[in-house]
């Protein structure tokens, strides 16, 4: 038997911090993003005519001047397309037809030979509006006085776990009724009741949305897009246009930052719709940075009411929480944020009596979409401050109070589901220890006050119960391995994780594995979407199954050729070995051509192609009246963060000196990548805590630029950050793994708010905690003059 000339030590890549598979192409500038693709001189450029008013009936759209402009190849309006589009609730026309519902709503689209001509043509489109009353506040939006934004709400297609209320602005209402909340208040020794207003923010990917579409003369659609969700885009665009899914091909190169903003469908259906009018031509739409702030999607605003009480020992007895989500003009995706915050409405605490009402409300604000955390950062912002207050009210240390009440293995959750094994308590204890809980450090200057704060979190992947994943593993003449997945690399490291799992399951060195990019819905295996921190777990299961399938094919082939039993064979370091005969053979010789039988008696085997898929089958429905059911979600990732801050009494400036994070990831497939998520998520959370809010005036976003909407820079991050990996295995996760991407920013706002309280003794309330807001709060409290 031929032996490999160069022996290589096989890394056991599970649990190894191997470097990112696509890192090199990203540092030399050769990694291709959608805007980098070249389409030649025939490319047309699209621009969008957007509504200048927040709510109005469209009386007329006059496109004649735009059409007459030389260089304009197509003008499309709502009259051209009758369908609706949407993920959970199909409430969104591709272009507005009878009315506009927010400033930025697309009224018409233009394709022209240059961006400048397209922009000029957009300016020539005349729209006559008849203004309607407006809804800018979700609490007002649910009242009978509010104008109804979607009179056709009862006619829209809707997923069977979403409950719109036709005739109102309620796109979804999720209810929890558990135990007896009313009676429980009498048992409480302390009760805290608070209201928070969490502002809209934006994902702010460095790469703005960009798509290119081409429609052939036979109607086949090709779409290149910066997308977390090529398969969902294929499906939703096909359904909306009334074509077959197989006639839509979506090609998705690397994504320059997603954070949920490039999930579902945002601009892509418009580009396809325009391209349908110029068959054979490629049409490109790239949002300007200004458009990116309001015309794709934003994180929903939230008005939240919390009431919670505990007995004299600090045991939580009851919660009554109400969430009014500012879903914006279309809630096709946002309705499920409402549901997620409903079934997780108690936060990571075991509470016997819970009422919760979570409403998704139509408003005349930009479209609220998924963003990293999917409702959890917003909800935890208030909830974890109330928990802190309640601990103080009953005279317990906030860490002790959380230890008593946080969910543990077998806890009965707010939906009635039983908690799986979880390392939340361990995360809490380790976080508190790392931040030096209970020790007060002196401030760095006389005009500064120092404090520490802590917060917990939980989050489940929010998705349809049957969101699936699939993967292929194929081998090449040289023994290297190609992994095909439909899950996207958006910076979180999914391709590296996939390669590690394939290498481990197959038995080859990590550096033999390639992950195919770009994704292509014609050739990549199906993946629901790259969202919900679900890829490591769900796609990971599919990749592992595919690699094991390939492994079985290889072992069966060799067993037949050698007349041995499969059980006696193994694949190690890219070679099949027999523990019995001590024979070995390199994969490169056999995975394409098979193995010749002795004495020219023919061949066995052939090209190896492993396949794997995964879909959770155990999630149950919940009673619409009570939100109760045996299994609301697949699992929860839990964790904790703590910070130390310093508040400048002269300016109100909050500086985060130190951050600590601990999350139970089940199993860290790549520990350094897990740490990197914890860091990046913490800083994104810090940015939302201290700086970020979209400011509105009559529905207009006042700060759609990097100058006026500040995000954290290299000067804002703490000098000291520590991340701690907790590993309590997930029973159906690959090697026990569950996700971490979103969770890392969930508890940051309340951890910082609690630290500010520890520093200056006042609750600043709703974020962001800008210098101005903190200084004004100190002024109100008489702390400064």
């Amino acid at each position, binding site marked *: 038997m031929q032996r490999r000339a160069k022996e290589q030590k096989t890394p056991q890549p599970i649990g190894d911090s191997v470097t990112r598979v696509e890192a090199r192409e*990203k*540092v030399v*500038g*050769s990694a291709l993003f959608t805007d980098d693709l070249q389409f030649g001189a025939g490319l047309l450029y699209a621009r969008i005519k957007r509504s200048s008013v927040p709510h109005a009936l469209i009386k007329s759209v006059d496109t004649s001047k735009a059409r007459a402009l030389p260089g304009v190849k197509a003008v499309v309006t709502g009259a051209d397309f009758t369908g609706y589009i949407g993920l959970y609730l199909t409430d969104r026309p591709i272009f507005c037809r009878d009315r506009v519902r927010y400033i930025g709503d697309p009224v018409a689209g233009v394709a022209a030979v240059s961006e400048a001509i397209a922009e000029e043509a957009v300016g020539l489109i005349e729209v006559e509006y008849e203004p309607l009353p407006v809804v800018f506040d979700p609490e007002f939006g649910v009242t009978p006085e509010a104008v109804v934004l979607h009179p056709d709400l009862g006619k829209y297609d809707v997923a069977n776990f979403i409950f719109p209320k036709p005739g109102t602005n309620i796109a979804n209402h999720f209810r929890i009724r558990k135990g007896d909340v009313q009676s429980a208040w009498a048992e409480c020794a302390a009760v805290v009741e608070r209201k928070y207003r969490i502002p809209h923010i934006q994902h702010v990917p*460095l790469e703005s949305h960009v798509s290119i579409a081409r429609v052939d003369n036979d109607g086949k659609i090709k779409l290149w897009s910066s997308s977390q969700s090529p398969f969902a885009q294929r499906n939703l665009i096909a359904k909306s246009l009334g074509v077959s899914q197989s006639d839509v091909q979506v090609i998705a190169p*690397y994504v320059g930052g997603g*954070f949920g903003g490039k999930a579902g469908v945002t601009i892509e259906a418009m580009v396809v719709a325009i391209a349908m009018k110029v068959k054979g031509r490629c049409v490109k739409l790239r949002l300007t940075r200004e458009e990116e702030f309001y015309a794709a999607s934003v994180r929903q605003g939230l008005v939240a009411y919390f009431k919670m009480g505990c007995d004299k020992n600090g045991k939580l007895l009851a919660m009554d929480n109400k969430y009014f989500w500012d879903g914006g003009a279309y809630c096709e995706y946002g309705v499920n944020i409402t549901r997620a915050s409903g079934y997780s409405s108690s936060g990571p605490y075991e509470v016997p009596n819970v009422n919760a009402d979570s409403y998704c409300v139509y408003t005349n604000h930009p479209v609220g979409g998924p963003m990293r955390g999917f409702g959890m950062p917003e909800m935890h912002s208030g909830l974890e401050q109330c928990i802190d207050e309640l601990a103080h009210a009953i005279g317990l240390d906030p860490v002790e109070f959380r230890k008593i009440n946080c969910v543990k293995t077998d806890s009965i959750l707010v939906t009635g589901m039983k908690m799986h094994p979880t390392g939340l308590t361990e995360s809490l204890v380790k976080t508190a220890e790392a931040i030096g809980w209970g020790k007060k450090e002196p401030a760095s200057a006389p005009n500064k006050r120092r404090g520490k704060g802590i917060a917990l979190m939980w989050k489940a992947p929010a998705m349809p119960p049957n969101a699936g994943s699939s993967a292929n593993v194929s081998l090449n003449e040289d023994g290297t391995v190609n992994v095909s997945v439909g899950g996207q690399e958006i910076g979180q490291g999914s391709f590296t994780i996939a390669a590690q799992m394939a290498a481990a399951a197959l038995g080859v060195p990590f550096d033999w594995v390639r992950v195919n990019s770009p994704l292509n819905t014609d050739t990549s295996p199906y993946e629901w979407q790259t969202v919900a921190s679900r890829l490591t777990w769900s796609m990971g299961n599919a990749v592992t199954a595919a690699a094991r399938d390939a492994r079985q094919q290889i072992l069966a082939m060799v067993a037949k050729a050698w007349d041995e039993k499969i059980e006696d064979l193994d694949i190690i370091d890219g070679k099949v070995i027999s523990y019995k005969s001590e024979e070995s053979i390199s994969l490169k010789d056999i995975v394409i051509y098979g193995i010749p039988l002795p004495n020219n008696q023919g061949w066995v085997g052939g090209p190896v192609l492993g396949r794997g898929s995964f879909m959770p089958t155990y999630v149950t429905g919940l009673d619409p009246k009570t939100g109760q059911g045996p299994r609301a979600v697949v699992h929860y990732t839990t964790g904790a963060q703590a910070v130390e801050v310093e508040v400048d009494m002269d300016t109100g400036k909050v500086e985060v000196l130190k951050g600590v994070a601990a999350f139970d990831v089940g199993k860290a497939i790549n520990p350094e990548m897990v740490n990197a998520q914890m860091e*990046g998520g913490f800083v994104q959370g810090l940015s939302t805590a201290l700086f970020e809010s979209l400011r509105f005036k009559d529905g207009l976003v006042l700060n759609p630029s990097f100058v006026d909407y500040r995000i954290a820079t*290299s000067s804002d991050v703490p000098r000291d950050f520590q991340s701690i990996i907790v590993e309590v295995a997930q029973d159906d996760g690959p090697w026990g793994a569950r996700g971490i991407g979103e969770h890392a920013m969930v508890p940051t706002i309340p951890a910082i708010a609690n630290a500010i309280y520890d520093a200056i003794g006042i609750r600043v309330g709703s974020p962001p905690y800008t210098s101005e807001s903190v200084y004004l709060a100190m002024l109100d409290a008489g702390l400064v003059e």
Partner: protein
Amino acid sequence: MANHRIILTINGETEQVEVPSQMTLLQMLREKLAFTGTKNGCMAGECGACTVLMDGEPVNSCMVLAVECHGSTIITVEGLAKDGVLHPVQQTIIEHGGVQCGFCTPGMLISARALLDRNADPSEEDIREALVGNLCRCTGYIRIIDSVRDAAERQQVLSL
């Protein structure tokens, strides 16, 4: 919209390009010469994704007209590695895990290179200040700062 013929050096190669008056350096690099490693993040000089070296100084290429570059020497991310050998900061940013989505990375690397060219031993404060114009939404900057410091140390070892 007259075209102008300009001659400049990009990543060590002499280039002759015809550009309209209003075309930016960023547009010329990406659309005329297919140096697409340099990214377009805001077109307003605010995010740093389009940073390139112009005569040794880091500039937002979206804020420089192509015609201004006549006679200049430009280095883009594609010009950082020499003969397939990565610049130290390209190597350290990989090892420290300072790359996630990768969209800010080219501009970040150029700003880091500019810093290391003018200051072989930058403090953490110097590094933070040098990168403050390069926005990143994924990494939280910490690993990028660490990788620049590490690159400086490796360069010093090399030059000893």
